[in-house]
């Protein structure tokens, strides 16, 4: 029988192991997040803060271009998340099948994930130039009049979302490939023997069993989409006008203008938005898993 360890003996993991990380994390991330709630209720110029109650939030929900940014954020997040999930899964299915140059294709699809977002933004902005950009030139050669991808206010956000998809689908594909690899081939064997078509196999076996990966992709891309800033800023700066502004770019613009209280209110709204969307989503996913 093993003697119970005396209390005084040191544990291999002393509590102070938490400390350095906790200090840095607490000071530089948690504390500002906490104070942001206070500052969002003020008119602030970094030295003095004047309490104005919910005025900043009222502005966010009444001024047309601020409201627009909220709507755009939701549209952008849902669009990019949906597209990445669907395209990622389809690409993953293609790239786990038996095709030629599979390894090379996987590499090619994934590489954009690692590249500078600003670089990609600039490149695509140039390619999307309404008259000289190669996309419209190519379309013109086919006889189609290419639209103003980034200059047409109704298209600008959508165009940026497409570039976001281009850049991010590789990661979704990678996660799905890992998820697909975890599905035992026995299932497919059995299904094939039963005479199921490829499509039925996909619906009945692949989709359900790849759920963990799906959940991950949807959650990660939604969070990323809601917080998105770099690409939009590099490509349109929220323009033309305000048509592609999202909450993150509004936060930056208000900061540039010196409206620090309003900018911080934007942060709080983004925080609330993410909680309001991700939390119920996670609960819903978990409940369905339990039900299954």
């Amino acid at each position, binding site marked *: 029988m093993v003697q119970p360890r005396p209390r005084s003996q040191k544990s291999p993991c002393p*509590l102070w192991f938490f400390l350095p990380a906790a200090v840095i994390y607490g000071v530089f*991330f948690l504390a500002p997040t906490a104070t942001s709630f206070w500052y969002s209720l003020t008119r602030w110029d970094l030295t003095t803060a004047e309490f104005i109650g919910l005025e900043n939030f009222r502005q966010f929900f009444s001024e047309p271009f601020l409201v627009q940014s909220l709507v755009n954020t939701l549209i952008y997040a849902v669009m990019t998340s949906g597209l990445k999930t669907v395209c990622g899964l389809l690409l993953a299915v293609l790239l786990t099948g038996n095709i030629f140059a599979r390894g090379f294709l996987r590499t090619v699809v994934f590489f954009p994930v690692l590249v*500078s977002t600003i670089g990609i933004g600039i490149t695509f902005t140039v390619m999307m130039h309404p008259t000289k950009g190669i996309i419209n030139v190519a379309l013109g050669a086919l006889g189609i009049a290419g639209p103003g991808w980034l200059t047409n206010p109704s298209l600008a956000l959508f165009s940026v979302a497409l570039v976001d998809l281009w850049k991010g689908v590789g990661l979704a594909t990678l996660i799905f490939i890992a998820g697909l690899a975890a599905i035992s081939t026995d299932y497919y064997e059995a299904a094939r023997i039963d005479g199921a078509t490829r499509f039925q196999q996909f619906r009945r076996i692949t989709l359900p069993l790849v759920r963990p990966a799906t959940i991950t992709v949807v959650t990660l891309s939604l969070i990323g989409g809601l917080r998105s800033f770099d690409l939009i800023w590099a490509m349109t700066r929220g323009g033309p006008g305000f048509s592609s502004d999202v909450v993150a770019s509004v936060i930056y613009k208000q900061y540039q203008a010196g409206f620090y209280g309003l900018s911080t209110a934007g942060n709080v709204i983004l925080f609330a938005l993410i909680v309001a969307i991700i939390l119920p989503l996670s609960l819903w996913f978990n409940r369905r898993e339990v039900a299954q």
Partner: protein
Amino acid sequence: MRHIRPYVTGGIALLFAAVVFILPFMFILIQAVKSKSEASRLSFSLPQEWLFWQNLIAVFKARDYQLLLAYFNSTLITVASVSILVILSAMVGYIMQRRRTPWNAVAQIALFMGLMMPPAVVPTIGLLQDLGLFKTIHGMVLIQVAYNLSFSTLLYRSFISTIPRDLDEAALIDGAKPWQIFFRVILPLLKPVTVTNIVVQSIAIFNDFTNPLYYLPGKENVTVQLTLYNFQSMYTSQYNLLFMNILLVTIPPLIVFIFFNRQIVAGMTAGAVKG
């Protein structure tokens, strides 16, 4: 027929992937070696003169060799942040996995917040100013550590669960102190995931644009991404130099990718499938 199908689908997929995924990079390369007037036409034609070295030198010389300073700053921030990050997050991952304490739940929630929540920028700027860390490299390093702690810690925690406890116990019996156990026994065993972590975090921090934009304004502190962004407004008519700059900024992650392909893939999917 069945033997050809993989080749046909593969061929079509290859063509499609080439156009969609490779073409933009080819465009960057072509634009980067053209002369100024050719590049401003923004067309996909081959360059008439191959000005690779001239453009390269011009970009580096621009604004008093700002790009060199930017590379230095970016590298410094990346190396410093990742080093601190690895040690601190391994420590937390270790204790969360090994020791049952109510702090674990607190840490768990705090870390998940870090994965989801946007940092409050303006209050952070105010804080940095009060601490005298605004616009400093060390301030930026601390920020990067704080913002990337969550992912890194969770990565370590899930990996440490695969290290048998007996090793800790054995070392303890041998009379080793906790920090000795950690650095001599545990950390070396974490090498695979550490490599992955380093690679993934380095790329993320090197490519980071938003945080230096807010917290590191100023000429002495330019990072590579900020330089590229500033180039856009400076060189409105010199697309060749702009694209050479993009090319230069793209190269480091490409090199890392070529050497650490496996680790990157492993890191990105770590924990993803388990949910």
